[in-house]
Each structure stands twice: as structure tokens, then as C-alpha cells.
């Protein structure tokens, strides 16, 4: 599926045009698809957006690289899972055979269980310098290995990168104490 692969690559690189196109392309079908579950259109769009975000996250962390199904099937799978989660239906979730196991980190969707430290960190992250932001983003969000990051950001050695990362984490800790 080379076409899908190129889309996946563009999505990895945050290409806004691609994001917009894919978002709009699948939206109508998703809304139609969700109609059978008796949800308001606003809720459907909400779920669609959350599913889409999950898709992007999985794309970024490389989980989507090896999927055998189409991108839309993958996306709809996430969406369906979220619909059931949200409305706690007792129906059995029949995931079609061609769907691989969808990894959705549902723990982060229950907004109520968020550690207060996380909230502070969210604010603190914005105050970090660009370089720290980059390093932390690549390491924790995109789950890249230090070797990859070193290459991408052009660090002379892995140790230099390690100490940078360490300093950034300390800096952030200080920021949230204030």
C-alpha cells in the first residue's frame, strides 16, 4: 500500500495539508458509520476528532507502519472502540479479522484521573526553550531512540544529548515548583 505509506509519512511530518485532506476525506463516512449508534452529530464529530488524534499519535510512534489494513479501516476501528467506550454498550465488540489490535491508550482519556503534576507540567513545558522542547518531544512523544535523535538534531555525541535531556528534565522540574 504505497499510497497509504506516503500519506503515513506526510502525517508523521505534520504536513497540515495532508492532515486536513485525510480528516475531511474520512469524516463523512465516519458520520454515516456512527449513525447506527444513535449519537448526536456533535458527539460524533467529537469522537471522530479524538480517534483522528489517536491515529496521528500512533502514526507518529510508528505503530501504524506495519498495518495491513487501510488507513480508514484503522481509523474507524479506533473510532468504534471509542464510541463503545464512551457509551459503555454491552455489545460485544466484533473487530473484523482484517483489523489488527488497535492500541488505544484509554487511560489518558479519562480526564478526571490526571495527576495534578501533569497539569503543572503541561504549563511548564510551554516555558521551556526550543531545544529542550524538541528533545523531550522526540524522546517521549515520538518515542525515538537516542541514536535517532542524535542524528536528527545533529548532536556530536550521544553523551552530549543525554546530558541535554537530563538538564531539560531538571529545568522543567524547577519550573513547576515555582
Amino acid at each position, binding site marked *: 500500500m504505497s499510497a497509504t505509506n506516503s500519506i503515513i509519512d506526510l502525517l508523521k511530518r505534520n504536513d497540515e495539508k495532508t492532515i486536513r485532506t485525510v480528516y475531511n476525506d474520512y469524516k463523512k463516512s465516519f458520520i454515516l458509520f456512527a449513525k447506527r449508534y444513535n449519537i448526536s452529530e456533535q458527539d460524533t464529530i467529537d469522537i471522530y476528532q479524538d480517534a483522528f488524534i489517536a491515529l496521528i499519535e500512533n502514526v507518529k510512534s510508528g505503530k501504524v507502519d506495519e498495518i495491513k489494513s487501510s488507513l480508514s479501516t484503522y481509523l474507524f476501528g479506533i473510532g468504534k472502540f471509542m464510541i463503545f467506550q464512551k457509551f459503555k454498550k454491552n455489545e460485544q465488540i466484533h473487530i473484523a479479522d482484517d483489523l489488527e489490535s488497535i492500541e488505544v491508550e484509554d487511560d489518558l482519556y479519562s480526564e478526571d484521573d490526571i495527576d495534578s503534576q501533569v497539569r503543572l507540567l503541561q504549563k511548564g513545558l510551554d516555558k521551556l526553550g526550543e531545544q529542550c522542547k524538541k528533545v523531550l*518531544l522526540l524522546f517521549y512523544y515520538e518515542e525515538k531512540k537516542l541514536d535517532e535523535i542524535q542524528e536528527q538534531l545533529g548532536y556530536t555525541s550521544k553523551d552530549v544529548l543525554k546530558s541535554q535531556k537530563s538538564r531539560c528534565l531538571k529545568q522543567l522540574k524547577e519550573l513547576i515548583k515555582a
Partner: protein
Amino acid sequence: MEKEELISLYFEGKLTEAEKKTFQHLLETDIEFAEDVRYQENVKKAIKLNKRKQLKATLQSFETEKKTTTHFAKWAAAASVAMILVSSYWYLTQLPDSNALYSSYYQTYPNVIAPTIRSETKNDLQSQAFYAYDNGNYKKSAVIFSEIYATEKEEYAIFYAALSLMESNKHKEAIKLFDSINTHKESRFSYYVQWYKALCYLKLNNTTAATKILKQLSSEKNPQQETAQRLLKELD
């Protein structure tokens, strides 16, 4: 191995089986270690949530983007409809105002038959009719003229009856009467019949019929030729 290194490998997913055991052990026994791991987990969550907020905002902008476009499209459609209406109105107001033209061209046709001198001394129908006509009592004159025509079949009677009707704003009926006048016969009224008939059509906003008659009047030599030509020009 340094604890920091172990945690780093944990997040990279590179821990060997042995290292995993060490990690788990430290997690359960070393409070500082556990706090450090928790802290970095929180950093990870925080970055993720921020990214999600960002993405959500972007996706929502796609939604309002479409709405704004639709809104704009609706506005543009409304504006163009308004434009069409305005230009139609403008165009229509450029058309000749039939009513105004009628008022400026219509003149009461004078009593040429039996101009009354003073009063209703003569009691015959004709005098009565013209007396009424000259005094502006067109309802009455219309009736009497019709009576005269009914009994005496005088051409002037029907002509003046029609004129009376015109004065009473009964242009449709007037046209009917005008039509019943045989204009093939050469009569002093023929051209006037045509002229007044045209005016009736004008008042009734039937510019097509009016124009037709006026064209005829404009082409033949008659007392109304010039006037007809003028009116015709204004109608074009």
C-alpha cells in the same frame, strides 16, 4: 548501571530481560527511583496532552473553516440575489410610467356636439347628457349617453359614453364601447376613438396594445398624429 541510564532505556524500550528485573525491583524498593520514573511518565503524559490540545484545536479549525466558507457562500448568494433584485427594480423603474404618461396626455374631449350655454333648459336627453358631461357628472352622462345610443344609435353618443366611462376610471368598459364603434366609417371621431382607446390601454398598463394603436396613428395623417408620435417616443 546508573539508575538514570536504566530509566532512559526503559523509555526507549530497550531493557533486556535482566535489566527489566532490576528496574522492577528498584521501582518497588527505591522511593527516589520510583518518583523519578513517575515524574518522567508525567512529562510524557503532559507532552501528549498538549499535543492533543493542539491537534484538537487544528481539527476544530477545519470545522469552523468549512462553516465560515458556507457562511460566506450563503452571504454571497444573498448578496447576489439582492443585486439581481436591485438591478431588476432599477431596470423596471426605467420603464415608462404608464400612469404618469396617461395623466399628461389625457385631456377631456370637449363637447363638440351641443355645447350648452347656460342651464338645463333643454330637457331632451342630449342636452341632459352634455350638461352632465360638461359639469363633470360623468356617471350620469355615461348613463344618458348610453340611453341615447340605445334609442337613436348616434355615433357621438357611444363615443361620449365611452369618454364618460374613462373619466369615471372605467377604462376596460370604455375600451369595449370604443371597440363597438365602427371606425371604418369615416367619421370625425375615428381618430379620436383610436387615440382614447390607446390611452385606455396605457392606463391599464397594456403598453403593447397601446403602442400598436399609436403606431397606426403615427403613420396616418390625422389630428392626433403628432401627439401620437410623441407619446410613442416616450413609450419606447
